[in-house]
C-alpha cells in the first residue's frame, strides 16, 4: 500500500469515528429515554444510576401510561392534525415555490422577501392574534383549528423554490412549445424530480406538528380533542418526578415519527441515486 493510500484510509477512519461520535452524542438522550421507559421507579432512584434497565419485560410503565391517558385517541388526534397540516403546507408551498421559480411578475422580489421575513417572527408573538383569528372563524375545538396555522410555511416555500430553481428553465420552455402545460409539467416532471426535497420537508413538517404542544392546547377545550403531547403532560407530576411514566409516554409518541422516517428514508436514497444517474 502506498503512503498516500494509507494516509487517505487513516483520514477516512478518522472521519468515520468523528461522525459516529457526533451521531451517538445526538442520539444518546433518545436511547437513554427509551431504555428509561423500561425502568421501575426504584431503578430510577437507584444511586449511582444505571444505563440498562434490569429487564425489557417490565412493561408496567406503558400499562400505567395507557391506564391514565387515552393515548390511542390522542395519537389519532395528533395524526390527523399532523397529516392535514403537512399536506396543506406542502401543497401551498409547492404552488408558491413554482410561481416564484418559473413566473415573472411585478414585485416578485419584494413579495418573496416578505415571505422570508415571516420566518423571523417567533411563533409565540403570534399566539394571541392567531387565537383571535381561529376563534372568530369558529374553529375552536376542531382539527382544522389546530392545523390551520401551519398551512403556510415560509421555510418550506423557500426550500422548494431553491430546489425548483436548479431545474433548467430552457427545458421547461422546450416542453411548453411541445404543449406541456404548467400543471402537467409540475405534476409529471418537476415533482417527481423533487421527491427527495418533498420527502424531507414532509418528515420535518410532520414531526413539528406531531410535537406541537401549546397551540393545540390553546385552541381545544374538550378532553377528547387533546393531542399526544398534552397527554404526556397529563402524566407528568407537578410536585414529583415520575420520569418512568413520562418516558413511557415519550417512547410511545416517538413511534409514528420513527415509522415515517424508516418508510420514507428509502425514498430519499432511491431518488438521490436516480437523480445521480440522470445527471
Amino acid at each position, binding site marked *: 500500500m502506498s503512503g498516500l493510500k494509507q494516509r487517505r484510509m487513516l483520514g477516512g477512519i478518522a472521519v468515520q469515528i468523528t461522525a459516529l461520535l457526533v451521531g451517538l452524542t445526538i442520539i444518546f438522550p433518545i436511547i437513554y429515554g427509551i431504555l428509561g421507559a423500561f425502568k421501575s421507579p426504584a431503578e430510577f*432512584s437507584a444511586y449511582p444510576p444505571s444505563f440498562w434497565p434490569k429487564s425489557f419485560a417490565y412493561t408496567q410503565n406503558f400499562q400505567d401510561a395507557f391506564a391514565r391517558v387515552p393515548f390511542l385517541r390522542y395519537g389519532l388526534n395528533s395524526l390527523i392534525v399532523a397529516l392535514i397540516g403537512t399536506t396543506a403546507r406542502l401543497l401551498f408551498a409547492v404552488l408558491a415555490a413554482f410561481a416564484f421559480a418559473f413566473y415573472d411578475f411585478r414585485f416578485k422580489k419584494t413579495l418573496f422577501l416578505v415571505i422570508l421575513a415571516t420566518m423571523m417572527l417567533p411563533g409565540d408573538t403570534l399566539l394571541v392574534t392567531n387565537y383571535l383569528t381561529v376563534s372568530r372563524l369558529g374553529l375552536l375545538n376542531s382539527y382544522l383549528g389546530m392545523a390551520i396555522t401551519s398551512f403556510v410555511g415560509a421555510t418550506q416555500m423557500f426550500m422548494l423554490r431553491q430546489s425548483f430553481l436548479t431545474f433548467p428553465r430552457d427545458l421547461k420552455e422546450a416542453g411548453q412549445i411541445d404543449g406541456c402545460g404548467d400543471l402537467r409539467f409540475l405534476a409529471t416532471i418537476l415533482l417527481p424530480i423533487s421527491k427527495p426535497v418533498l420527502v424531507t420537508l414532509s418528515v420535518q413538517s410532520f414531526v413539528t406538528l406531531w410535537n406541537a404542544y401549546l397551540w393545540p392546547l390553546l385552541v381545544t377545550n374538550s378532553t377528547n380533542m387533546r393531542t399526544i403531547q398534552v397527554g404526556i403532560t397529563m402524566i407528568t407530576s*407537578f410536585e414529583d418526578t415520575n420520569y418512568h411514566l413520562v418516558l413511557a409516554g415519550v417512547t410511545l409518541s416517538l413511534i409514528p415519527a420513527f415509522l415515517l422516517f424508516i418508510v420514507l428514508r428509502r425514498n430519499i436514497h432511491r431518488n438521490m441515486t436516480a437523480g445521480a444517474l440522470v445527471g
Partner: protein
Amino acid sequence: MTKRILPLLLAALMLFSLGAQAGEAATLVFWHSMSDETGLLLDKYVNSFNETIGKELNVTVEAVFQGQYSDATTKLNSILTAEDYGQLPDVMNLDATGKVAYFNSGRAWTMDDALKADPDYDISQILPITLGNWAFSGVQLGMPFAASTTIMFYNKTMLDQAGADAPETFQDIITLSEKLPEKSDTGLDIIAYSVLPNTPTLANWLGQLGSYVVNNKNGSEAMATELACIDNGALETFLTEWKGMYEAGALTNAAGTTDQFVAGQLAVLTTSSSNVTSLLEKIGGAFELGAGYYPRVNAQASAGATVSGSSLVMFDKQDDAKKAASWELVKYLASPGVQAEFAAATGYVPVNRGALEEAGYQALVAEYPQYAVAADQLAATPAEMSSVTVGPAKDFYYAIQDNIAMMLDEDLSVEETVEIMADELSGLLYQYQQANQ
C-alpha cells in the same frame, strides 16, 4: 331553490338545539392543571359532585386538564387579550402565575363576591395563612385548594445510629454533621445538608426573622419596588449563619436531590411537604423517614415557611345560576371530606380545619406521623409570612442563588455579599419598574 330551503333548515336546527338545551343539565366548565394521580383524584371528586349536588342543581361539571399552571395562564391571557370571554371557564384552578391575570381580567367573580351572595358560609374553617396566599390588593380572589409548604425530611435511621436528634436550627445541623459518619454502608460520602438558597427559600428564612425580601409585603399587596431586608440586617443575619454552617462542614454548596436522600447519602432534605407520599414510596422501608419543621436560621427565629400551591377562582359568565353552581363546586372541593382525602392521597396540607378531624385523615396521621408535620407547621407559621411576587422573577431567583453560592465558593465576606446582592437585586427591580411604567 337552496335559498329557500336554507333558512328553513337553519330554523329547524335552531328549534332543535333549543329543545335539547331545555331538558339537559347546564354544563359548568372547570379548568385544572392537576396531572398524573392528582388529576385522577380530581376527576373522582368532580364525578361525585355531579352525582350529588350537581344533580340537585341540574348542572354537570366538565373537568378539563389545561396543561401545567403556566400553560393554563397563557391560555387565560390569550382569551383575555382576544376579549373572547365566552371561552372562559366557570371555575379555574390557578397557581401564583395566574394571580395577577385573574385580578386584572375584568371578568373575575371573586371569592369576596361569592361570600356576599352566601353570607352563611363559615370562612373561619379555612386556614387563614392559605387564604392569605390568594388575596391580592385587599381582595380575596379565590379559595385555596392544594396547599403545600416546605418542611424538613431526615433520615431517621442514620440520625439514630449517629446518636443525633432531629435538627431544629442551623446550629443543630452543625452539631448533627459532627456526629455523622464520613461514608455510608455503600461507600458514598455522607452529606448533612445541601441547599442553594433561591427566592422562595430566602423568603422562608428572612420571614422567620420577621423580615420581607422585598417591600409591599413581598409584593403581595402591590408591585415590589425595593428590597426590604437590607436596612433591618435580616439578610446579613441569614448570610452569617449560612456561612457558619458551610465553614463548619455541615453544608454542601449544591442543590441536594431527592435521589441522594433516598440513596442514603443526604441526611437532611428540605422540600415540599407534598412529596411525603412519593418519598415514602421511593424509600420503600430502606430507612425510617423522619419529618420536622423547616430549619430555623437561629434560636431567635420563629418557626415556619411560606405556603404555595393552587387555588380555585371563578369567572363571571353573566349567568347567576352558573355562578351559584360554581361556588357550590368550590365549596365542595374545599370541604373537610374532600380535603382530608386529597391530603391523605397526595401529601398536600388540608386547607380546611375540619379535615383534620376526619377519621380517614386521623388514621393516616396515626400510621404516618410525617403527614401531620406540614399542617402543624402551617398553624405555627406567622400569618404575615408571604411568598415573593416580583416582576423579574427568573433573574431575581438566579441572582440570589448565584450570589450566595459565590459567597461560599470564593470566600467573600458577608458584608461584601450583602452589598453585591443589594446592588444587583435592587437593580433588577428598578429596571423592571422602568420598563413597565
